[in-house]
């Protein structure tokens, strides 16, 4: 792997790094989409990920967002190891099915052929299963820590990643098309709202106050993203540029520490691109966000990035400040094409 050896040295890790990726490798069958990627994002930085098409940028994004598990390597978010290949995953189903089966077995042994007694025990086993299985599937925090103590490790799911402070947008916009802009943002606020279904059913004052406040806040996010007055528009009816903004607003509503933006200016005209670039800058200064950006538009990248990482064919070929990247001969060769001699 001479290429890896030649890559620019990794940024030294500091305790204030939002994200640390350690030698992430992802294979799809025979295709190596990512090879030993080392990656660090310092707090409140704007870091860009660039590279030609098929370089593995979106794959890397999806690994961070918990959508695809890496083949090897791990990712720490704010000091928590959240993503790594599963360990002892086969133990988990045993954990779910052993208790009910045990109860059933005891029931069969104890009741001595009395079918009605067996059925009662069976019901008990079923009850137990209905308590265990949904918990195991929903994976609440205490369950996670319990199985971790047993040495089982499974990567965090997308919603867990959101919980630990990562918001994201998608390369090909994925909004809730038949919901209004405001509702889209409200879904983004899902984890920040506390009222339970019971609150909703009883329409408790707490619930009503929270809903009221949530709508005000959601409207503010829309405004921040430049969608003032679009609250009740259905997402699918918004023009393309506004859909991109709405996705950003929805991601902001998660109140993330780290915001992942996958080509936020794709398909936009220069004016819109300028607005989005300004917005990204404001997100850092006003909200104190850390941003990881995938972007093709070099003016955007060079203009706002603190550091840039260049991927090519799944490998990190360079890392540095925009100035360094601009001058790096490997980048110029692999990404921008050979300069005319």
């Amino acid at each position: 792997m001479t290429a890896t050896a030649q890559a620019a040295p990794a940024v030294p890790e500091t305790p204030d790094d939002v994200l640390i990726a350690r030698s992430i490798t992802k294979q799809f069958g025979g295709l190596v989409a990512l090879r030993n990627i080392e990656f660090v994002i310092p707090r409140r930085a704007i870091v860009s990920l660039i590279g030609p098409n098929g370089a593995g940028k979106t794959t890397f994004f999806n690994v961070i967002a918990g959508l695809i598990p890496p083949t090897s390597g791990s990712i720490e978010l704010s000091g928590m190891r959240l993503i790594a290949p599963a360990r002892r995953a086969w133990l988990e189903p045993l954990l779910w099915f052993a208790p009910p089966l045990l109860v059933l077995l005891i029931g069969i042994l104890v009741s001595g052929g009395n079918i009605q007694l067996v059925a009662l025990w069976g019901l008990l086993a079923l009850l137990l299963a209905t308590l265990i299985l949904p918990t195991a599937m929903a994976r609440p925090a205490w369950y996670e820590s319990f199985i971790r103590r047993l040495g089982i490790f499974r990567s965090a799911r997308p919603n867990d990643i959101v919980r630990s402070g990562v918001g994201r947008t998608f390369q090909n916009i994925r909004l809730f098309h038949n919901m209004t802009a405001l509702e889209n943002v409200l879904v983004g606020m899902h984890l920040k709202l506390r009222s339970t279904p019971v609150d909703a059913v009883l329409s408790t004052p707490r619930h009503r106050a929270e809903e009221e406040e949530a709508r005000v806040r959601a409207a503010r996010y829309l405004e921040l993203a430049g969608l003032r007055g679009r609250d009740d528009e259905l997402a699918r009816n918004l023009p393309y540029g506004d859909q991109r903004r709405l996705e950003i607003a929805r991601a902001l509503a998660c109140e993330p520490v780290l915001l992942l933006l996958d080509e936020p200016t794709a398909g936009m005209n220069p004016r819109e691109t300028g607005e989005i670039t300004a917005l990204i800058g404001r997100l850092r200064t006003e909200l104190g966000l850390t941003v990881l950006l995938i972007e093709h538009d070099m003016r955007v990248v060079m203009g706002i990035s603190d550091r840039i990482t260049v991927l090519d064919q799944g490998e990190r070929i360079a890392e540095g400040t925009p100035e360094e990247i601009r001058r790096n001969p490997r980048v110029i060769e692999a990404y921008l094409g050979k300069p005319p001699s």
Partner: protein
Amino acid sequence: MTFRILRLALIAAGALVISWLLMIGLTWLGTRSESFSNVVATGTAQYFSALTIGAIYALIALGYTMVYGIIELINFAHGDVFMVGAFVAYLIFTSLGFGGAIKSIPLLIGILLLGFLVTMVVLGVLGAAIERFAYRPLRNAPRLAPLITAIGVSFILQNVVQVLISNSPVPSPQLVSLEYRFTLLGASVPLLNLLIFLVAVVLMIALQVFVGGTRLGRAMRSTAQDREAAQLMGVNINATIAITFFIGSALAGAAGLIYGLYKGNIVFNLGFDAGLKAFTAAVLGGIGNTVGAALGGFAIGFIEVAAVTTGLSRWQEALVFSVLILVLVFRPAGILGQQIGERA
């Protein structure tokens, strides 16, 4: 290619032998008091009925798996297409004046060939028509829409047969006399069972050759892989999907004809149960995988007959569906399939 065929043949032969031994073992479990030779004889007889029933499920399962492979739709109406196949064959045979066993072998073969040909063509056209009118307009609609349409089509097919032909079971002509039998290990097995198994295997091999070797087959596979890319490469998507439906439905039609010959009794709602079991077979084998569907079909046939031999015949359906749920929970990709479980 030759290596692949050889390997498949070896797997198939191995599966045949192992399942035969297993069936004898299960028969012994079900009837422990009997002598060894009796157990072997009963087990062998049961084994052959499992092969027959399995062949029918396998043929239906192929349609599910092909359609799912190409447009990711569970064609709920497919079980009823199979049922219509049984009734079309019934209409053909009775209208030609054959109500029972045919004594003359050449005539029998001729009529059967004619029956298969006409049934398969009629059903193929029916399947392609269903696709054209009920599914194609919804190809870009939300996922739920074509599923619900499929249920609607299933209702329509059942009800049309119910109203046009009969509300109650109809005796379907058993053209192949059950008197033709052969004896193996003390079991007297109707030749019909073997015939059905062979016909199914021939049809499946023909399908494999078609999908693997022809231009149309290549178009089908490329469409299944990536519809847009295939379209850019000049594949006619609509035609390819229509042909997939044609073939899948034709196979279901053949299965329907076979079912009529074998059971001697058909009813308008038989497609529901059979369809569900065949779908289980397709899932078991890994949906989208034709070889898997065939294996899954035989596996379901085996489970069903095994349930009877072990005295659990009342729990047949429950057993099959438990298998379905277990497979989906633990190995949603099926035995031979690729990963298809949704992650979220």
